[in-house]
């Protein structure tokens, strides 16, 4: 007997016990759909819920097995034991290693990887160092480097509410015309982030992950690379993505009018208008 007021979404979530960077971790992942594996990476200080729109859209899931995982310290993935004695700082090497380990653990055969912001940066590292492992790479809000434009210490200090300041920092990165419902859902994820986690991710984004001098060596013959960037993003700007497009032969890039830094979360419907043709290209390439 169906109840028209109730809908169970097609997304399933599970936990994986896995060693990452030589430490035991309990990692949350979720998936929906069947077909070509599409591994999605969330932004700094957020979690897999950013991809809820994609995972609930049959136009995506009828051809793609969409998988997302919460990075350790994020969402429902706990930090490793002993976290209270350390300062979390994401590095390029650890981040790429975790993506490859998750790909192997979940038995994903040459997945497409799509990442946003820090995820959009790490796909450049994957393209440079691990291209043959992947069928395609999609960078959302990809830039080779971002200089900090505020004092990152504001993100983690006991006399400022971490969740509220993190949401305040990123609120302007949402496109001004994105639906209020999705804007505030996106900001809620930031408000729920653990103390110091957003700041720790930004270590990769603003320091360790600088890839400016290497991007021209990315070989898109080994693995195709697509770049989509929102017009209103002032963190990873359209100019940053244009620089990548000019520097990486064979890359395809597009600026998404009206959108901000969180396309899949801030306005999933509008984002799919840009993404679906690209996924069709992936599918046709086989």
């Amino acid at each position, binding site marked *: 007997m169906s109840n028209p007021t109730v809908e169970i979404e097609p997304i399933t979530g599970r936990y994986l016990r896995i060693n990452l960077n030589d430490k035991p971790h309990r990692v949350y992942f979720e998936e929906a759909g069947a077909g070509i594996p599409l591994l999605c990476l969330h932004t700094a200080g957020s979690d897999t819920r950013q991809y809820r729109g994609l995972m609930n859209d049959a136009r995506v899931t009828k051809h793609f097995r969409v998988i997302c995982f919460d990075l350790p310290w994020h969402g429902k993935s706990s930090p490793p034991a002993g976290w209270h004695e350390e300062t979390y700082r994401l590095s390029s090497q650890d981040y790429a290693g975790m993506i490859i380990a998750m790909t192997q653990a979940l038995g994903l055969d040459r997945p497409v990887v799509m990442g946003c912001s820090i995820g959009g940066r790490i796909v450049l590292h994957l393209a440079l160092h691990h291209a043959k492992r992947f069928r395609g790479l999609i960078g959302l809000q990809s830039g080779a480097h971002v200089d900090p434009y505020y004092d990152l210490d504001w993100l983690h200090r006991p006399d*400022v509410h971490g969740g509220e300041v993190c*949401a305040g920092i990123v609120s302007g990165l949402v496109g*001004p015309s994105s639906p209020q419902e999705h804007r505030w859902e996106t900001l809620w994820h930031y408000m729920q982030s653990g103390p110091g986690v957003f700041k720790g991710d930004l270590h990769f984004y603003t320091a360790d992950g600088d890839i400016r001098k290497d991007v021209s060596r990315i070989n898109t013959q080994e693995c195709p690379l697509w770049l989509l960037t929102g017009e209103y993003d002032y963190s990873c700007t359209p100019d940053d993505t244009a620089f990548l497009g000019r520097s990486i032969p064979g890359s395809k890039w597009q600026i998404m009018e009206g959108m901000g830094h969180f396309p899949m979360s801030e306005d999933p419907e509008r984002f799919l208008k840009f993404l679906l043709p690209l996924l069709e290209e992936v599918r046709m390439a086989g």
Partner: protein
Amino acid sequence: MIDVRESLDRLPDRFNKRLRLVQHAKRLNTRFLLISGDTSFRLTIAGGMVSAVEHGPFVMGQWDFVIQADEDTWKKFWSPTPPPGFHDVLALSKAKRMSIQGNIYPFMSNLLYFKELLSSVRSQESH
């Protein structure tokens, strides 16, 4: 055309109706200077409400922090559909079109509040 002085004079009426924001900031008491080109305004926040908008120049004035931009920048920021880069104070700050200086603790510890306060000058339709 946006008149900066007129827009700021209307700010208390417009913003203080937003009761959830005001109540959430009930412990916030601060004064800041908003500079538009050569013109300055001192805004006083008392218990989360905008209690005064005073027009400069100020002789021996006091405030916690200063937000400064040229008049054209404020007008673009407050336009119904701001162009990219003019839609948010941090976007303006990153582009060095706006400076936020002084004791910025009240500003940063109430960042969402101040973003809502400053953008509430924008027409309601675009909000």
